[in-house]
């Protein structure tokens, strides 16, 4: 029990360390604040007029989608940070200390979750300012945010694996982008799936992003269709697959 508590304490120390750096690295800070807000404004005011979303104002349609995309990218911090820590010897420093060895990875992903929560709050605030409205109860909205954070955690583990496989911090980040960008765009995040060519439609419908974005719409806007359990299953499933793979990879990398 005391070991478990120490492990939690160590994880919080590492989490704090990972968060402290963000305000000091202008590129990261911009990535987590200005960039998502800019995307919200661009989509609403530039593309919004041209995209048909029957039954919705575009800003209402967009917000669940763009929050999901931002959260999926949150793991970028883990990919870049983990890669840097390995390369610069900080992981060795941590591993020579009497701390829980799991705290290095756990502290990384927990920092992502906290950053994702802050980015979500910021985007919701901007959304509300430009006309976005929740159409459901507070518990439903909170459940939606929790679901998205869980989905983001799954992507943190995917990004962690990228960070452990990549040869540099930069390439760790760009591999992540290469994976997440097509997945988010070929989904219901920004446009209705029905507007895509049939081949893409088939992909978009099976895409976990579509399922999660639809679940977020159900919880934020009260749209019909129940993909909430499927979204939960996808999130947990991705974590169940990628967390052990990333941990195993981490063990192999540090053993050499």
């Amino acid at each position, binding site marked *: 029990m005391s070991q478990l508590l*120490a492990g939690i*304490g*160590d994880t919080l*120390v590492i989490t*704090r*360390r990972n968060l*402290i*750096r963000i305000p*000091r*690295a202008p590129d990261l800070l911009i990535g987590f604040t200005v960039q998502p807000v800019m995307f919200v404004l661009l989509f609403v005011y530039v593309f919004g007029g041209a995209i048909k979303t029957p039954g919705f104002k575009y800003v209402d349609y967009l917000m669940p989608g763009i929050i999901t995309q931002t959260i999926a990218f949150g793991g970028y911090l883990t990919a870049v940070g983990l890669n840097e820590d390995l390369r*610069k*010897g*900080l992981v*060795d*420093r*941590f*591993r*020579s*200390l*009497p*701390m829980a060895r799991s705290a290095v990875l756990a502290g990384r992903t927990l920092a992502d979750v906290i950053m994702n929560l802050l980015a979500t709050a910021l985007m919701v605030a901007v959304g509300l300012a430009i006309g976005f409205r929740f159409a459901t109860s507070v518990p439903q909205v909170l459940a939606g945010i929790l679901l998205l954070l869980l989905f983001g955690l799954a992507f943190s583990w995917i990004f962690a694996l990228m960070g452990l496989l990549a040869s540099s911090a930069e390439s760790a980040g760009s591999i992540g982008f290469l994976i997440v960008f097509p997945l988010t765009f070929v989904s219901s995040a920004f446009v209705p799936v029905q507007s895509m060519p049939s081949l893409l439609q088939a992909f978009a419908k099976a895409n976990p992003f579509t399922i999660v974005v639809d679940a977020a719409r159900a919880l934020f806007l009260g749209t019909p269709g129940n993909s909430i359990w499927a979204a939960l299953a996808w999130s947990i499933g991705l974590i169940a697959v990628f967390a052990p793979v990333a941990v195993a990879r981490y063990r192999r990398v*540090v*053993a*050499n």
Partner: protein
Amino acid sequence: MQTLQPSQSLARAVSDEPAIVTQGLSKSYKNVRALTGVDLVVPPGSVFGLLGPNGAGKTTLVRILATLLKPDAGTARVAGYDVVREGGRLRTQIGVAGQYAAVDENLTGFENLEMVGRLYHLGGRVAQSRADELLQHFDLEEAGRRPVKTYSGGMRKRLDLAAALVARPPVIFLDEPTTGLDPRSRVSLWETIERRVAEGSTVLLTTQYLDEADRLADRIAVIDHGRVIAEGTSDELKHQVARERLEVVLGEGADPTVALQALAVMGDGQQPRVEGQVISVSVGRRPGAIVEAVRRLDTARVEIVDVAIRRPTLNDVFFTLTGHKAEESAAGEAE
């Protein structure tokens, strides 16, 4: 080959419970054998120097002792704990400073040390006061609230060493702690290490600087191709391995080859060295060597500026044992 038997000198060292003991420690990477059967005993409260060219296995050895790497064979105990089976408890007893200053660039000096203190489970208040104490000690007080990315190389090295000392660990591993430091910082770092040892810590130090080993280390192991090829005090190594050398500084127009020929009979069979107009011949113990050299060079009409007998240095020990100079070989790629 003048190889000292490690066991001879070890037998004398074992008086107290040793701080570090290794037996038959071996490690291979794919098809490279980094360590082959390393036996060492480091008494507590001493500085133990590991000398060796790059790729000799120094860093591998330190990484195994700091529980960062598992050995393929053999055993090692640090502060009484087995490196494989008791890693968790062992890590409460050690501090590590590496070849690359492993500090977080985005954190301030204070935040770095506080974090390390918390991860040693010192508690928040102790971690903070200890961080302040160390910043002051390492002359980083003013820089302590700035992010480390604004620090010079020397400041990072000092912070890295401070991080290794946060928990006042009984055993400290320093992997090339002064590489890249200016002479003043090196000396002040040496003084810090000496103070820690005076307070009872044991230090295992790898270095490419022989003067550093000479100054700090109570005992030195020379390691090459993953084996300990000699072990003893600095004086023991000098006496048993290296000879006195005759060093001649030639005049500007003099031909080193002619000079070497003139001095050939005085040599003890070891390869003479030539560096520009300075030649150096190993003469063993040879009374009257200076007079004889001057006479021979005069007869050969070689103009000389200076002649001296040099007592062996660790550099000579290293050269004799491994066939190359320490600093040259270590200046290349990282291990």
